């Protein structure tokens, strides 16, 4: 595949997901959550993973830390290389060393991802003690410093999560993730639970930390505005597949996939109040069914008969832009971004 030949310098890739397929098996049905995706994260890059509920975004990133619950999760195929090492081949000890140290995660809901009976200082220090082998006192001191970097006074290290507001709790979660200076940071909708002005503060903080610590980030979000704000690459997921991928500018300004177009057209146009919203018709497909053709065909205004029967291939239309649409190759075919 051209995609794999594209970057010669493997040094610049901190995370490489190859042909990943994950399904959840229950007594009732099998849910195909992630269907053969390829994803690469560049050093110091910020990749936005975009898609709607159930697209497989969270399953994808959980697999990076080997956190898919088994059962019901089954990894059918795929390789995940973190700094060149295959995650699935690591021993439990190596894995727990990697978690938090090499790869850290910020979860969506700061209200539930903190331990309510531990002070925030202890929670940050816990990961420092584990990974850096510092004494409790030294770790606590470092925890205070980390709190300061996310804009919370070190004096508050002795407080419990319920004593903080939502925005501050999310900062604490970020502080825990950053405590050991991970080189890959995975943020799963880090600002969804926050108000806009607080969201602005947290995004600003994340940008600054990226500069300071040289981290590479995967940012899961459904908000295209946030992607435009802090990402330099985008991957659009639909029904467990990546349908379009590329640099921010390519995907946003030179949109090629009808689903990406549909996402943009569903948003209220801030330049023209009177333009009508164009929703994507229908609903996301049933993830327990394997479709013979394109999974988006049912909802796609451009779908032809062939789209329903033939799987679209991933095409790199230039070195910064991939699209998986069966009609892309037709000479007269183009989509209509509003």
């Amino acid at each position, binding site marked *: 595949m051209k995609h794999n030949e594209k970057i010669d310098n493997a040094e610049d890739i901190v995370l490489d997901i190859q042909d990943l397929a994950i399904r959840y098996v229950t007594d009732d049905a099998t849910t195909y959550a992630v269907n053969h995706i390829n994803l690469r994260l560049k050093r110091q890059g910020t990749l936005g993973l975009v898609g709607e509920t159930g697209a497989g975004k969270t399953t994808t990133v959980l697999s990076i830390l080997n956190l898919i619950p088994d059962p019901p999760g089954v990894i059918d195929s795929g390789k995940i290389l973190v700094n060149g090492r295959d995650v699935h081949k690591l021993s439990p000890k190596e894995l727990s060393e990697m978690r938090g140290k090499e790869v850290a995660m910020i979860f969506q809901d700061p209200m539930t991802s903190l331990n309510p009976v531990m002070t925030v200082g202890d929670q940050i220090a816990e990961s420092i003690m584990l990974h850096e082998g510092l004494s409790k006192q030294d770790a606590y001191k470092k925890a205070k410093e980390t709190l300061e970097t996310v804009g919370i006074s070190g004096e508050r290290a002795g407080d419990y999560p319920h004593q903080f507001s939502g925005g501050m709790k999310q900062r604490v979660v970020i502080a825990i993730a950053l405590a050991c200076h991970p080189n890959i940071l995975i943020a799963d909708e880090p600002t969804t639970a926050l108000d806009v002005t607080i969201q602005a503060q947290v995004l600003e903080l994340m940008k600054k930390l990226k500069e300071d610590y040289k981290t590479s980030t995967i940012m899961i979000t459904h908000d295209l505005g946030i992607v435009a704000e802090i990402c330099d690459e985008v991957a659009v997921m639909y029904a467990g597949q990546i349908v379009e991928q590329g640099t921010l500018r390519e995907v946003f300004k030179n949109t090629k996939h009808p689903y990406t177009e549909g996402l943009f057209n569903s948003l209220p146009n801030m330049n023209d109040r009177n333009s009508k919203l164009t*929703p*994507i018709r229908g609903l996301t497909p049933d993830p327990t069914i394997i479709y013979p053709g394109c999974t988006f065909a049912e909802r796609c205004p451009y779908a032809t008969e062939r789209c329903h029967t033939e799987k679209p291939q991933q095409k790199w239309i230039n070195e910064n832009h991939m699209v998986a649409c069966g009609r892309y190759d037709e000479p007269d075919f183009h989509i209509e971004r509003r």
Partner: protein
Amino acid sequence: MGEVLLEVKDLKKYFETPKGLLHAVDGVSFTIEKGKTLGIVGESGCGKSTTGRAILRLHEPTSGQVLFQGKDVTKFKGKELREMRKDMQIIFQDPYSSLDPRMTVNQLIREPIVTNKLLTDKNDIEKRVLELMETVGLAERLYNTYPHELDGGRRQRIGIARALAVNPKFIVCDEPVSALDVSIQAQVLNLLKELQQKLDLTYIFITHNLSVVYYFADDIAVMYLGELVEKAPAEELFAHPVHPYTQALLSAIPNPDLDVKKERILLKGEISSPINPPDRCRFAKRCNYACEDCMSKAPKLVEISPNHFVSCHHPLV
């Protein structure tokens, strides 16, 4: 100016808490014309939902007046109150928890018709349920399905059908699309807009999503800590916000348009406690322009240009 359908005068709703009096809504006044939409925006805890509910008397207002077609609904009792409920309805935020999971679509939509004795004949009721399902775009085959079988968008359509069942004139939409994905969100917004035109409805549209409110509302009211800080027609508010809080709020909207580069105004700190708030500008502590006046006395809502109201000692005109 068109016919005023709803006028809210100095509406207050306080809650007693162990720590003191929580000023959820503190002296809010506005009017809405028939057939128009007033958007209420603000951050969590600013009192926007409480305002909507106090208007419908789902929370009993502490003081103030709510004049609906000229009559003060806060004084209504018994039969009058029940009649008022037919005119004034609400659509709730969460279509997952606002519907009884053990009732079918048919039963859910039928309930308000039967409870209010709008129709008594079995066939008439069934006809009306089917008609409502068609109005909100629910396929007939879903007649006997349960909410858990449906996605969020369809569930929200049930909520809309229930509100419409009693032929209301006025609906409070409390974050009706916040729980939905963007593609579904657009479907529901379009539906609400169509219904407004078809049925001549008047809306209060409560949301924290500023781009949605810009698209949807005729007038926008911005709330902060229980108070109305600025109100203007949507285009005017977005083009010329004059309250420092409104400016910061608008600048914080992440914009997917790569060609629009905005200066972002970052606010210091976070919203303070609504319990026993001091008698001064409630935004002063986070405001980049605050002076002594702001720290010592509360500003009043004044009209700075036609239909543009602001409550600030130093509006940024």
